């Protein structure tokens, strides 16, 4: 503080004092926040029985499981036919069936992402605090989105399997519903960060609320929305590959079977195929996003 006094300028001294006061207050707040957070963390760990000792004891078993599912690949016979032990073909001996199932999984994810995000986009505008037409619409939209995303996909899937029978349709609907809730929140928050000058411009020209959404807000938030949409697509591939556990289509049913029968090498084969699929979708979505954003910038 002495440096400020040394200048002898009253404004500088006042500024330094105000800064010190603000900093003290911020530090007290941060300290309090940390204390509360730590207490909550301890309480949560205690209630959920997440004791470090249990964690420590179980760790080696995770490694053991990975060792078990590691395929038996041998260099000499790596590229031999599916009849020879130690070859890739032997490890992936049901590749055609699995590929088909994974293709089905990816398609389920794509359809569910599109359906869910369309609903999310419609609900996001009333759910954005800054442009919502009325408090009632705001709360209605927000609570609907919450309900859609807090119920786990598996629960939805069980309901839909019961209603529509075993198959991908139940899985698609379950994932779409969850995506709508999750993406709706993200879209709404992107809208809340949008600059409202353009909104005022459209309103001042006599545009309706819908016009404002379409012309002032959508062009601003579209790049964000595309990012969230593609991220959701990746997340949904993962969801779609486990939703089959309850008979809702995709590779999940097969995965569930090999896990419960302890077909260790087949577990790793399917997991590797899912990882490859997700990486491919990641590469593709990166390109799509750049192309889409590039076109948006171009038409501006």
């Amino acid at each position, binding site marked *: 503080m002495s*440096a400020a006094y040394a200048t002898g300028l009253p404004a*500088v001294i006042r500024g330094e004092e105000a*800064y010190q006061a603000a900093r003290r207050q911020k530090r007290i707040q941060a300290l309090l926040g940390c204390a509360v957070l730590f207490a909550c963390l301890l309480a949560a760990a205690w209630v959920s029985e997440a004791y470090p000792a249990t964690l420590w004891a179980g760790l080696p078993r995770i490694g053991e499981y990975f060792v078990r599912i590691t395929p038996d690949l041998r260099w000499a016979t790596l590229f031999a036919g599916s009849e020879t032990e130690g070859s890739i073909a032997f490890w992936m001996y049901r590749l055609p069936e699995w590929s088909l199932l994974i293709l089905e999984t990816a398609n389920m994810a794509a359809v569910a992402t599109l359906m869910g995000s369309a609903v999310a986009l419609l609900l996001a505008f009333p759910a954005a605090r800054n442009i919502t037409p009325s408090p009632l619409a705001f709360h209605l939209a927000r609570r609907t989105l919450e309900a859609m995303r807090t119920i786990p996909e598996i629960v939805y899937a069980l309901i839909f399997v019961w209603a529509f029978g075993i198959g991908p349709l139940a899985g698609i609907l379950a994932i779409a519903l969850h995506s709508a809730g999750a993406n709706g929140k993200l879209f709404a928050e992107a809208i809340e960060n949008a600059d409202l000058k353009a909104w005022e411009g459209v309103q001042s020209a006599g545009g309706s609320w819908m016009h404002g959404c379409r012309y002032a807000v959508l062009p601003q938030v579209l790049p964000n929305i595309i990012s969230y949409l593609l991220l959701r697509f990746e997340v949904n591939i993962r969801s779609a590959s486990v939703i089959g556990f309850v008979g809702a289509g995709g590779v999940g049913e097969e995965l569930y079977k090999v896990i419960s029968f302890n077909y260790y090498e087949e577990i790793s084969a399917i997991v590797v195929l899912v990882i490859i699929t997700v990486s491919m979708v990641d590469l593709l979505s990166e390109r799509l996003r750049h192309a889409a954003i590039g076109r948006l910038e171009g038409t501006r």
Partner: protein
Amino acid sequence: MLEIEGLTRRFGAKTAVDAVSLSVPAGQMVGVIGRSGAGKSTMLRMLNRLTDPTEGRIVFDGTDVTALRGRALRDWRMRCAMVFQQFNLVQRLDVLTNVLVGRLNRRPMLSSLLRMFTAEERAMALAALDRFDLAETALQRADTLSGGQQQRVAIARALLQEPSIILADEPIASLDPRNSRIVMEALRGVNREGITVLVNLHDLATARDYCDRIVALNAGRLVFDGPPDDLTAIRIREIYGVSEEEFAAQAAEAVGATPRLAAAVA
């Protein structure tokens, strides 16, 4: 002494700056004028190395600036502070922190990431703000300030860099006449303290009022270099083929500003 030798920048087939050579002694205030697309911005950005030259060299006190990389490049940037048309402040940070951005290059990495600055640096920042009557706004967010205030914060940030040169790219094009005067006087004041100032201007009258020397660019080429008195209306017509009023209107339009001369005539 800042020496520019055959500085050229091409964007695809377009040549933005075309073999410009210039020598600026320390402490001079140089106004760079030209119409839209004349290459003024590109030239200034090349001096700070925000844009890399295609050909040519920039030499400052015997050091070849065009060859610098990494640490040395960041040190050079600290020595030639930039002031932008749109101020380029961090809107969501407070004014004091925005000014202290000028010290980042001198701080150790970890403490600077934790926003820790010394009391001396804070005193410097507050004194710089006080100089432009902004000390009271130090803890406000930058986006609560008017354009003129923000530009003065940007100049305070530049001063905290303790630069040898200030490069100002259309600093007053987004400001009203009163704020333009305040900002130009601030730059002139800083210049009197020995800092070289290169300022891009769309307005000839401002350039004449404040600068020791005027450099004119047209289509990337240097077309005039001399004291303001030599840049008469006749010279303007010779160089650009239009009257001074037309030149002012065109140059102002390019940066989205109100032309001072044309407004006065109207």
